[in-house]
């Protein structure tokens, strides 16, 4: 072991290390003998003082360090507690406040890496000691560094224009920030625009959403780009460059006033193409506006249907009809780039594909609907003007609502989608109210935690809805008795009475769960964040940083982070907006000084490093002593790949020098 005293470098004086072992209540102390770890630390090289304390991150804990810095003239500090990703900044700041450069600090992770994951106490002690020794060894070779400040671009980008994105955009625009709201579909509004009523208050979805949509349209601080997708993101917190693909609508957005004359005059006299907004239950023409309140109120042409594109010729009555000359068949896709300081992702969810559970008969039996289809049927603006009708035009006498389709199911999604119980109740209520049909709910558990939710369930019970507890086995048209003839039979085990039952109904509604978008993985990759295995974007911390992500400056709002109902989406959107505002208003970001640099005197100019750098931060420079590589520190993100590659050791990385890592290796292995 080479760890003799006085081995480390300092600015002038020998290292004097203080070690602080945190109990974290019983989180660490319950498994690790913190006192003995501190005792062990006292014998490590250059350690002057070592203590253990209940909560190092508390004010008294931090003061303990600061007092020691002053009293014992400490010039190095090690805290053994939680993950550095959690509290490194807390303790760095404590050091700085006591006059010590914050980078003379090192953390040993004895909670996430030791006490929480180790079974035996003595093993936990040993591992904690090894990690503390590593930190002590390393910290002796730390040097004073400065964080770099970079100005923050004041604009903000919101990706996804559902209720979450709308709310976040409006909040920030109202605070005076310029917001780019980018939506993939031709209109904003998202899923909420398709709903008729919202639970549990049954207020009209359109009545509360439409004003917000037009606010977005009219807000001087919002640039709304619908029918557009983000295709690339560069940069870092404070200075992102976002490239947006604007898909051609074949209609000049600025000219269109939404009068729909063009739709009227289209050579297709009858609407004959499936209307996506109505879940394909209604029809539309090749030129259309998704729904009357669409925002922006602009039509678009589907080139896969319009004769002008499919056949190459058409009387183009639409163009003729347009007084504003808004129709432009030659429109091309274009890429625009915006700069911004922060990004809010509110890309939402998709509903579970009910065809994945073939025994429920979706797409096999005409009268099996998804809940979203029923939303359109009950919606006054929907394809049936709000009348609940079967495909043959008759009104159902009995309706079965199957809960948990694609949720709480090991074969599809193990998680609970959180909103289905409540929207099923809402739909049950609406169906009963509008048709008087017998309504059967098939549920596993009723999950109604929320303000007024349980009361709504009570109301449904009183209204005479049937509730059968059990997971539906199958929906079939196989009649076993005359009463079942011509009906859909729901087979289920009623687990409250322990009997298999067959319930014949006219209409089956599958309460589909919420899933992440298919391209969630591409999106998270583009924005440099992570997502769970199911595709939900991962927040930085499940409790304490629920809207931040692993990438600074990228925030989450709404169901892209996990299933949520409208109030939760709006709340999170507000939180995300506040976080983004905090970043943008601060005006600058501080960057970790973990950049790499090349010592020109030692560089031989071999160019091994040049191809290493993903950011083209390394350039070859002609100097008096020949060609040398130099690193543009402003571009360096501090990965250290060039450092590992440099064959002659001429490159070093702040915070991760070879020396520091070699010491850490030695420390982690030399004692226990």
């Amino acid at each position, binding site marked *: 072991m080479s760890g003799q005293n006085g081995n480390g470098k300092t600015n002038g004086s020998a290292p004097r290390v203080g070690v602080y072992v945190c109990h974290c209540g019983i989180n660490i102390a319950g498994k690790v003998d913190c006192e003995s770890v501190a005792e062990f630390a006292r014998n490590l090289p250059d350690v002057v003082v070592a203590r253990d304390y209940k909560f190092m991150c508390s004010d008294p804990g931090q003061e303990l360090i600061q007092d020691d810095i002053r009293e014992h003239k400490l010039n190095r500090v090690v805290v053994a507690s939680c*993950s*550095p*990703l*959690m509290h490194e900044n807390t303790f760095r700041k404590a050091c700085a406040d006591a006059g010590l450069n914050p980078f003379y600090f090192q953390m040993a*992770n004895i*909670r*996430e*890496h*030791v006490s*929480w*994951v*180790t*079974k*035996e106490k003595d*093993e*936990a002690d*040993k*591992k904690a000691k*090894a*990690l503390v020794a*590593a930190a002590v060894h390393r910290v002796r070779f730390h040097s004073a560094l400065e964080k770099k400040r970079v100005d923050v671009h004041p604009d903000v980008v919101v990706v996804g224009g559902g209720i979450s994105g709308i709310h976040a955009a409006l909040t920030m625009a109202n605070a005076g920030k310029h917001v780019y709201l980018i939506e993939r579909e031709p209109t904003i509004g998202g899923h909420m625009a398709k709903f008729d009523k919202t639970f549990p208050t049954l207020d009209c979805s359109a009545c509360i959403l439409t004003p917000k949509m037009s606010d977005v349209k009219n807000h001087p601080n919002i640039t709304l780009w619908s029918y557009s997708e983000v295709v690339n993101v560069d940069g870092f917190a404070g200075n992102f460059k976002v490239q947006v693909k604007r898909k051609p609508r074949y209609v000049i957005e600025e000219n269109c006033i939404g009068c729909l004359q063009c739709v009227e005059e289209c050579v297709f006299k009858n609407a004959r193409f499936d209307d996506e907004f109505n879940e394909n239950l209604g029809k539309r023409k090749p030129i259309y506006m998704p729904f009357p309140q669409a925002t922006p109120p602009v039509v678009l042409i589907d080139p896969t249907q319009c004769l002008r594109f499919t056949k190459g010729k058409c009387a183009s009555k639409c163009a003729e009809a347009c007084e504003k000359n808004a129709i432009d068949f030659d429109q091309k896709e274009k890429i625009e780039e915006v700069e911004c300081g922060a990004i809010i992702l509110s890309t939402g969810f998709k509903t579970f594909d009910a065809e994945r559970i073939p025994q429920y008969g979706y797409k096999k039996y005409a009268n099996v609907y998804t809940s979203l289809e029923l939303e359109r049927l009950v919606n006054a603006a929907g394809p049936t003007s709000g009348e609940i009708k079967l495909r043959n035009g008759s009104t159902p006498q009995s309706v079965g609502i199957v809960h948990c389709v694609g949720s709480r199911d090991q074969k599809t999604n193990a998680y609970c989608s959180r909103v289905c119980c409540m929207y099923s109740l809402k739909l049950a209520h609406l169906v009963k109210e509008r048709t008087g049909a017998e309504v059967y709910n098939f549920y596993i558990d009723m999950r109604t935690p929320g303000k007024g939710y349980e009361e709504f369930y009570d109301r449904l019970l009183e209204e005479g809805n049937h509730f059968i507890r059990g997971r539906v086995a199958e929906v079939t048209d196989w009649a076993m008795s005359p009463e079942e003839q011509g009906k859909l039979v729901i087979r289920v085990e009623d687990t409250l009475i322990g009997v298999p039952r067959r319930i014949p109904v006219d209409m089956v509604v599958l309460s589909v769960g919420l899933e992440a978008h298919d391209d969630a993985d591409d999106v998270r*990759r583009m924005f*440099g964040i*992570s*997502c*769970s*295995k199911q595709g939900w974007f*991962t927040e930085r911390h*499940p409790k304490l940083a629920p809207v931040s992500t*692993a990438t600074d400056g990228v925030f989450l709002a709404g169901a892209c982070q996990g299933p949520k109902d409208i109030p939760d989406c709006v709340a999170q959107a507000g939180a995300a907006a506040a976080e983004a505002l905090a970043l943008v208003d601060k005006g600058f970001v501080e960057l970790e000084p*973990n950049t790499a640099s090349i010592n020109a005197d030692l560089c031989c100019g071999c160019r091994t490093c040049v191809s*290493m750098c*993903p950011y083209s931060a390394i350039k070859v420079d002609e100097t008096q002593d020949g060609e040398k590589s130099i690193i543009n520190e402003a571009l360096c*993100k*501090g*990965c*250290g*790949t060039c*450092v*590992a*590659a440099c064959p002659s050791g001429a490159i070093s*990385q702040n915070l*991760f020098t*070879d020396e520091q*890592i*070699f010491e*850490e*290796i*030695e420390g*982690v*292995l*030399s004692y226990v």
Partner: protein
Amino acid sequence: MSNGEKTPTGFEPRIVAFFCNWCTYTASDLTGISRLIYAPNVRVIRVMCSGRIDPQFILAALREGADGVLIGGCHPGDCHYQEGNYKALRRFKLLKRFLNRMGVEDERIRLEWIAASEGDKVQKVVNEMTEQVRKLGPLHLAPIATPEAFEHEDKQELVAAGAEGESS
């Protein structure tokens, strides 16, 4: 799975892990947050990117007494720094060839792609590797080979065979 159980043989391997800050280190924090118990034999050293890992670090760890070295980085395509993990992969592959010829068993040096959400994978990989290295015993290199062996076309195979002979 070892689950942190000790074996009666008494040999407890020490494994040094180099985890990248963005994926695998975050994943190992998640393992902790999820309270997934695993073998205590692995000690993690954090680097910003698996691309920072210099083959010298791995040899230094073995020299200082590690019985195995685990490298954790982001999945291909997921690197926070675009392609650092590929650079780690190339260096790892070359170093591994060399170590293999020096008689260091394959199981002692492991590279795993572990995403930030894969806390359970950290547990699985650590337990698995601890078990494998425990079975191998303390790091012992193949006895110095005989010249005939090296003259043979397939040196590698013979070196490995030599190692087997020694350990039995």
